């Protein structure tokens, strides 16, 4: 009975693993194909079923007839990094305030303010795209990195607040009180005592910010054109032209690579139980 149970367990894991890996594998093999390898029908195994070539990969870096992907790549790093950083700083500060102090403005209380932050995520990008478009145009920030960073802050700040409020609520207040009695003002308490003990939460918040920031398509799509391009937009642009599946696949693989590294970090962290304090 035990072995049957074990067999089913491994089978289930295997099945899901195949499901997970499937598109990557396909993209990998396709990225080494040429036109023949693609149009003849679905093929999987290099050398046996098709002739592999580096054509797809070469066109990514400014090769003949392709797009240079390093520009958008860099832009994505800059925009996602800056927006995440600012969001985490502002969001953690706000979350600490919401966790430790009582705010009252009329009938609006802490819980409502936290809800306000989180509810910003409900808006579909569409709803905000046009107003943002007009706003950025007014500010002269269309098609700029700064404009995008501004917009991304609005998207990522709620995430930082959501994660950190929960985390701070699980840090005992007595730690704050002890810091107060040792002569720390609330700001000093936050900076010297609470923050150093909040690394798990910050990692989770940072992770989510990076993921949602790096992977955004819609705002980058609507708010940038030629001067600034982010990675997802650049890749999808490849999609709409003559279908070069090979460079498409190659670019897709490159774009997801950084975050896959992140997956390793997260798992390591998760196993050490670090996530537990961050996510109730």
């Amino acid at each position, binding site marked *: 009975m035990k072995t049957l149970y074990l067999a089913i367990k491994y089978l289930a894991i295997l099945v899901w693993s195949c499901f997970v890996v499937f598109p990557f594998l396909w993209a990998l093999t396709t990225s080494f194909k040429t036109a023949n390898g693609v149009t003849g029908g*679905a093929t999987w195994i290099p050398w046996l079923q098709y002739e592999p070539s580096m054509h797809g990969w070469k066109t990514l870096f400014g090769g003949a007839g392709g797009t240079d992907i390093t520009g958008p790549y860099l832009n994505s790093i800059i925009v996602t990094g800056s927006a995440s950083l600012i969001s985490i700083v502002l969001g953690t*500060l706000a979350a600490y305030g919401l966790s430790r102090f009582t705010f009252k403005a009329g009938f609006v209380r802490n819980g409502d303010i936290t809800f306000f932050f989180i509810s910003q995520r409900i808006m579909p990008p569409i709803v905000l795209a046009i*107003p943002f478009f007009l706003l950025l145009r007014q500010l002269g920030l269309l098609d700029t990195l700064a404009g995008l960073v501004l917009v991304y802050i*609005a998207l990522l700040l709620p995430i930082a607040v959501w994660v950190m409020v*929960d985390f701070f609520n699980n840090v005992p207040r007595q730690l704050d009180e002890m810091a107060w009695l040792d002569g720390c003002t609330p700001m000093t308490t936050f900076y010297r005592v609470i923050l150093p003990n909040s690394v798990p939460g910050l990692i989770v918040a940072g992770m989510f910010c990076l993921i949602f920031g790096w992977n955004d*398509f819609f705002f980058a799509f609507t708010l940038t054109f030629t001067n600034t391009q982010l990675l997802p937009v650049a*890749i999808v642009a490849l999609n709409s032209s003559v279908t070069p599946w090979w460079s498409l696949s190659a*670019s897709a693989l490159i774009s997801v690579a950084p975050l896959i590294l992140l997956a390793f970090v997260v798992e390591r962290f998760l196993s050490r139980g670090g996530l*537990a304090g961050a*996510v109730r």
Partner: protein
Amino acid sequence: MYRQKHLFLLPGLLVLVAIIIFPLLFTIRVSFSSWDVFQPGLDWIGGENYGRLLEDARYWGALGRLLVMAVGTVLIQYVLGFALALLVWGDLRARRFFRVLFLVPMMTTPVVMSVIWRTVFHESIGPLNGILQAVGLHGLPWLSEPTLAFISVMMVEIWQWTPFMFLLLLAGLVSLPREPYLAAKIDGAGPIRTFFAVTFPAMAGISIAAILIRLIEASKIMESVYVMTSGGPGTATETSSYYIYIRGLRDFQLGYASSLSVTYLVIMIISLTIIAKVLVRFFVKDRT
């Protein structure tokens, strides 16, 4: 008592409000105008747009489809995510490897993966049909048949976001106290009993949070639809977001699209509040 407290909340709150408030107010204002390609500008037509949307079958159809898709995918993601978390929780060979693997899809760029999935679902030269044909079955019109298209989009969403549930639930499992499990073992409870009596109730809090957050995100399903089906065939995979996109950024009927957006927002906030309450009821049953 502590005046410094405002220093914490205000920077973030003000920045957010500053960035969001204009778009929000603007959208509301535009919804009362007839701004479109032919008549750009803010006039006032009162609630005409709202009247129009009440009769707009396509809009409500999109909402209905969104409901099915969002709730469906989130539920499936929850069940699968929980199952996966349970599978890699205890003793397992290469446990860490599988944990990393299962996390990966969430880390990928949805648009980019949708592009790849589009090639996967391709009817003539895509690998999915290739495999089906290899085992002697017929290839299916994944993206050109309404129901199949719907399912295809759901599959992509499930592939992409199950790891999110998986991550949160696994984090929860890893931090569960051991004592109740020892007690259950002493009482002779089997694995199924133990799950329903110990594990599931203990995960109530995380489950609720995870489902709610996923629902909020899932309701914005857009990129997979945009890339794979463009809402089609017909309107089979057209969700609210996509419909608003069509009216707003393609037909450029900003006034009408704004009213669609405002209505959508209100419906979402109300629905999510109700769903939150229902979830709490469901997960936190009276334990006597």
